[in-house]
């Protein structure tokens, strides 16, 4: 056996070190979070969360070791099989899972409970990698993305049915991988635009103009679209003049409607929609007549956005349930509700904020010890780091995650086989999404979506799931130096 075949030499030890660092820091934090003031036990007491997590860590390492010993090709060969098994498990879960805090996502077998959604991420990543590594497959048109959308959509819906909205949303992360694999960047930009418009509409929807003559939310969002409609054509040479005319007209409309309003009440929402619509239609015709696809796209996006604005308003006020509305309102600072929906986030900010620069020291956190922070060893585990280890500790954790993500992307880029690369980017995307949502939630800049912090949060399912995800990548990566047999 040559060195090339020996996993000891082919394994990416850097990643393993990052992984171990995160797992151990997580374990310490869980001990800190679940530590009771009058508790005398050690980190290895199995009646405690930290002790149980230790078991999960050992078994996860064993699992990772097993993965590393497997032949790397089985992941490619059996990708669809894994996917199929995962889907079946998800379906079964819907029917057999007991209701745990409103979610039906756990399969309970004796003392062990287990969440198939964690496995589904890995399986979906493999399936996508398998599909996208087909000979000659490339994302060029929308139709190329349809099968991908279906592969994602099935587990997404099944997990939604288990009332695990957070875990379902994780599947959005694959968009980032699609982008790397050729999906048009505009999709991501449109996604960002949609989020911005949604926030503007909702945030300012309660602020009405004049005597109920429109809302700053709607008018502001339309103003953003109008600016896009002016700036984008302006940046392409032949339409500079017309863009400027539309800019002038828009200003004129604003002034005129304010003046008219003195004698006759104006509904500013309609004025804004009208102006934007006229502009869009003009660009659409100009685009078609002069064969400028970019103009057509602008018009298309504008009209789509107008529809989206109205839909956002409608959905927020009439489709979303009050407790979801409240969560969004609290996040957008529209409502201050430190005892209700804002309680979790407020307490988590207090816990983190009270840590200061150096933190209160290991096991000295008061907010986490005294259970002010909810779910403090699972979704809100980052609070414990913030409180006990302060700014330097929590920044260090973020930096290790950043290093890990950069490392995974580097691994992705050095793969010869697109199956490996796609899988690597899937792993990076999933971990990044978890990090962004989880830490963002704890810091109060993302809505409260309950998903674990990878490798950190307490729980066997999630640790096993993430370990599998990462170690399959490591196994695939290790094979790049192997001689083909």
């Amino acid at each position, binding site marked *: 056996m040559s060195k090339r075949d020996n996993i000891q030499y082919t394994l990416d030890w850097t990643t393993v070190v990052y992984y171990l660092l995160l797992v151990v820091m997580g374990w310490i934090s869980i001990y800190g979070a679940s530590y*009771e*003031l*009058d508790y005398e036990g050690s980190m290895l007491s199995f009646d405690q969360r930290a002790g149980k997590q230790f078991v999960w860590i050992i078994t996860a390492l064993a699992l990772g070791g097993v993965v590393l010993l497997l032949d790397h090709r089985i992941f490619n060969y059996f990708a669809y099989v894994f996917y199929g098994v995962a889907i079946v498990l998800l379906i079964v879960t819907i029917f057999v899972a007991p209701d745990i805090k409103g979610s039906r996502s756990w399969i309970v077998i004796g003392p062990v409970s287990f969440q198939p959604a964690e496995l589904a991420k890995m399986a979906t990543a493999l399936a996508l990698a398998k599909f996208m590594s087909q000979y000659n497959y*490339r994302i060029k048109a929308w139709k190329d993305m349809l099968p991908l959308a279906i592969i994602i959509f099935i587990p997404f819906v099944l997990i939604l049915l288990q009332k695990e909205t957070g875990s379902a949303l994780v599947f959005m992360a694959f968009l*980032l991988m699609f*982008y*790397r*694999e*050729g999906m048009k*960047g505009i999709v991501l930009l449109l996604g960002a635009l949609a989020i911005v418009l949604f926030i503007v509409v909702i945030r300012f929807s309660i602020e009405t103009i004049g005597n109920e003559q429109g809302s700053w939310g709607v008018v502001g969002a339309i103003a953003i679209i109008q600016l896009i409609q002016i700036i984008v054509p302006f940046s392409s040479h032949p339409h500079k003049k017309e863009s400027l005319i539309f800019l002038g007209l828009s200003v004129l409309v604003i002034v005129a409607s304010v003046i008219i309003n003195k004698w006759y009440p104006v509904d500013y929402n309609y004025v804004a929609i009208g102006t934007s619509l006229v502009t869009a239609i003009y660009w659409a015709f100009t685009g078609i007549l002069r064969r400028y696809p970019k103009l057509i796209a602008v018009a298309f996006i504008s009209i789509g956005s107008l529809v989206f604005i109205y839909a956002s308003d409608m959905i927020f006020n009439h489709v979303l349930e009050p407790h979801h509305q409240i969560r969004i309102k609290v996040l957008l600072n529209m409502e201050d509700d430190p005892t209700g929906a804002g309680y979790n986030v*407020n*307490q988590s*900010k*207090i*816990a*983190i*904020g*009270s*840590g*200061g*620069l150096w933190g209160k020291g290991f096991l000295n956190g*008061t*907010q986490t*010890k*005294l*259970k*002010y922070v909810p779910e403090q060893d699972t979704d809100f585990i980052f609070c414990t780091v*913030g*409180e006990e280890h*302060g*700014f330097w500790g*929590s*920044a260090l954790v*973020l*930096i290790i*995650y*950043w290093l890990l*993500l*950069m490392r995974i*992307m580097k691994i*992705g*880029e050095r793969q010869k086989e697109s199956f490996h690369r796609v899988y690597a*980017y899937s792993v*990076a995307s999933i971990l*990044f999404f978890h*990090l*962004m949502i989880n*830490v*963002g939630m704890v*810091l109060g*800049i993302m809505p409260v979506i309950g998903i674990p912090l990878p490798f950190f949060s307490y729980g066997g399912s999630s640790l096993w799931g993430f370990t599998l995800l990462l170690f399959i990548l490591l196994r695939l990566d290790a094979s790049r130096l192997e001689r083909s047999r």
Partner: protein
Amino acid sequence: MINDRLENRRWVISALITVVVLVYIFRLFNLQIIETRYKQGAESNAFLRKTIFPPRGLIYDRNSKLLVYNKPAYDVALIMREIHDLDTLDFCKALNISKEFFDNRMLEIKDRKKNLGYSSYTPQVFMTQLNIEDVAAFQENLYKFPGFYIQNRTLREYTYPHGAHILGSIGEVSRRKLESDPYYKQGDYAGRDGVEFTYESALRGVKGVEILLRDSKGRIQGRYRDGEADEAPKAGTDLYLTLDIELQKIGEQLMNGKIGSAVAIEPSTGEILAMVSNPAFDPSLLVGRQRSANYAALVKDPTKPLMNRATQAQYSPGSTFKPIQALVLQQMGGIKEHTLYSCNGPASSPIKCSHSHGSPVGILNAIEQSCNPYFWSAFRAAIEKEGYGEKNLKFKSHYQEWVDAIKSFGIGRKFEDSDVFEQSSGNVPSQKYYNRYYGETGWRAMTIRSLSIGQGEVLVTPLQLANSMAAIANKGYYITPHLNANDTMQLRKHETLVDSAYFPIVIEGMWRVFEFGTGRRYKLPDISMCGKTGTVENNRGKDHSLFVGFAPRENPKIAIAVVVENAGFGATWAAPIASMMLEQYLKGKIERVELFNQIATSTTNPDVKTR
């Protein structure tokens, strides 16, 4: 190659990840280092600053007899958020309260207008100052009532049912006090009246703090850093009063069934030996749960038992004013060594005499026989000695001289440097007053003749009256009357404006009152006593019965003033009461038991609740 272009997207994704991580690090920096409110938030979350109340100082009398001490009491507190599955009826039964009381109390607690600091997370007092008996049944069943707690505090307990007006009481601090003194927190107790109020800051001690860690459900999880940051309470300082509780007790017993007061002062020190005000009440009535009900009943009582008549009631001194008058008029020249004034008995004009005695009279007889015409003549002679002068100015200046001299006996103004709570000022009418009433030149000696015999506008409190006797006993000065035995009041010596040479003859006259005059029936055989009775007309019925005096004549140990409202002659009521209080103080016991029982069981006012 197309792939080359896509490879560059790696950097876009890297940039995105980096930006997010940087934003989060910046956010952490902001939360943990720039913002300070989260640190405070954490403290108010997790730290339960439990106040440890120091034991309040004990109160003793001048002979170190314990008067006031502390006994444990219990508050029932609740944390609204923790209450669940409450069986209200069971709860009410355990605490022996009605459902209505419970409902009202809960509404009151939640009403932020009444209960400013309300929070459903923090302990709120539900019932306060329960006895161990009240709380025993509740304590046993406490497990059934999650969210309810029992807190310890102390209540005042009294050894004697006497001296309520002097001792005062403690009660919940008022909102004004809360705002003016940061030491107090809502629900704290502080002295409200009496020496409990005056010596509040010494008696209360200094509160301590115990910092406990409280979890999100409000449960106490232990002490912060094992009590390192706690502050130990400082016990209150004990208070030794000038009061002689036995004398106070005898005084209160003698005043039983009567309205009035008796004040005894040690002349050489200004120490108040007894300060009786009747109707009185047992100080333990104003303690604990019954406080408000008892207080309301006392407020409603038409005989005003809450009022400390010894310091707050104002009376015309009547004939008891004559010794001071005699001193001041000597000083002013209205009475000279051998001055005699004629008296026509009841036929005298403008003021008649109520006693029959020879005429003309000298100062000794005038005091002994309480001769009104004598004092009128002397008064007029003193302030009219230079006539009226231009615009009455000469007359008025002599009147002012008289006012100042009278006031120098501590009459007509509060003892501002005293620790006696809630005094009335009494009154010695000013020039200004008469000018306003009669015009600048519209009044003369004749107009204000009532003043000569202690009637009319001149008003004194029993405390002032007793103090004026101390000034006479001291032959020319008094020490501010006070209640704290450890106070160095000796320094606050007030000289009267009357030369000490004029005192012996007045003292002689007062001695004669006991030897031959109105007080002779109540003279103690082996003690030379000085005194003066007074029978004061007033507009509320029968005359007030007054007596002032001191004893022994040489080296006086006690000066006294007694007022019995609407009882009749001074010699009938006030004189025996004063006499027996002198006996008690000078001899340590009452030998005239029959007299004592007779006075103690007599009632002059049927409205007064006898005790």
